[in-house]
């Protein structure tokens, strides 16, 4: 009760959410619903398209958390390229168009039990830990392109360059893995 009084004194209302919170909640519900459809639908191409909705919803959540640069990077890389790659993968492995009855494996009840147990435990822990914690979004934008670029190229240059080498190595590896053997054709 005393914590409730303290919280009320600091100006954060329990039952009066702000507009940002309401928007976050609605977008979060849509995102979670799209994610659930992604992992449960029987149509493989629809799973990739619902993944677009889920990733776009997460981009909107980044915008609501004032991390603009991350949001646009999310839209560019995830929605723009990763989902397209996944769709190409589905097409190249001759994924059936329409409902495929064997999209889920036999250990589905065990997976559901594990996921629900993990979700219950983690939600309980997280809500209990951050019950009285608020993000102050009014003190300026945290993740504009200027701020992100400055921190990225002032403090994180070495990991950035190492990551570019890793990305190059990964792409070369992907090309080497996926091309056909040349000596077979001779």
């Amino acid at each position: 009760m005393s914590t409730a009084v303290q919280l009320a004194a600091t100006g954060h209302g329990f039952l009066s959410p702000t507009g940002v919170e309401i928007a976050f909640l609605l977008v979060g519900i849509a995102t979670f619903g799209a994610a659930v459809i992604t992992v449960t639908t029987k149509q493989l191409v629809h799973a990739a398209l619902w993944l677009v909705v889920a990733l776009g919803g997460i981009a909107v959540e980044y915008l609501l958390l004032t991390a603009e640069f991350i949001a646009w990077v999310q839209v560019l890389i995830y929605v723009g390229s990763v989902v397209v790659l996944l769709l190409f993968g589905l097409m190249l492995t001759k994924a059936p168009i329409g409902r495929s009855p064997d999209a889920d494996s036999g250990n589905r009840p065990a997976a559901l039990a594990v996921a629900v147990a993990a979700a219950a435990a983690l939600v309980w822990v997280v809500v209990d830990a951050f019950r009285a914690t608020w993000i102050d979004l009014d003190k300026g934008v945290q993740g504009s392109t200027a701020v992100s670029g400055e921190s990225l190229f002032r403090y994180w240059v070495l990991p950035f360059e190492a990551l570019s080498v890793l990305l190059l190595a990964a792409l070369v590896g992907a090309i080497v893995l996926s091309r056909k053997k040349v000596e077979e054709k001779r």
Partner: protein
Amino acid sequence: MHLAYPAVLAVLLFCTGLYGVLARRNAILVLMSVELMLNAVNLNLVAFDVWLRDTLHAGQALTLFTIAIAAAEIGIGLAIVLLVYRNRGTSDVDRLRDLADPPPSGQVPPDDSDDSMAAATDNGPGNGPGNGPDDRADQGTRARRQTA
């Protein structure tokens, strides 16, 4: 904004991805679920970075790095899935059990009746995955070579 909103959303997305990884059979759908789990982690990183007002912006920098590593991972993962599909004719993770222990006392596991499974297991130990003679793609290249 209450910090519990992004934290709970990240937890729910992570557990959705966990369910997908455990329950899906197609390897590409498993990769999609892995992407969901990585996005849940990214949401947590951004939320805690904004909450802590980190002067180094470690959370957002790490989010960018995670996105780049996820892109690399999806490229390599799709290349491996395509290679497995080209060699085996299937991309179901349930059927890739060459490394599984043999069933005890000679009983046959129920999935063995499939022809693609039989084709996958007919690869002897001498035939590496690159030169298995019994897959459709190889037959296609052989036919193309004969016509050429």
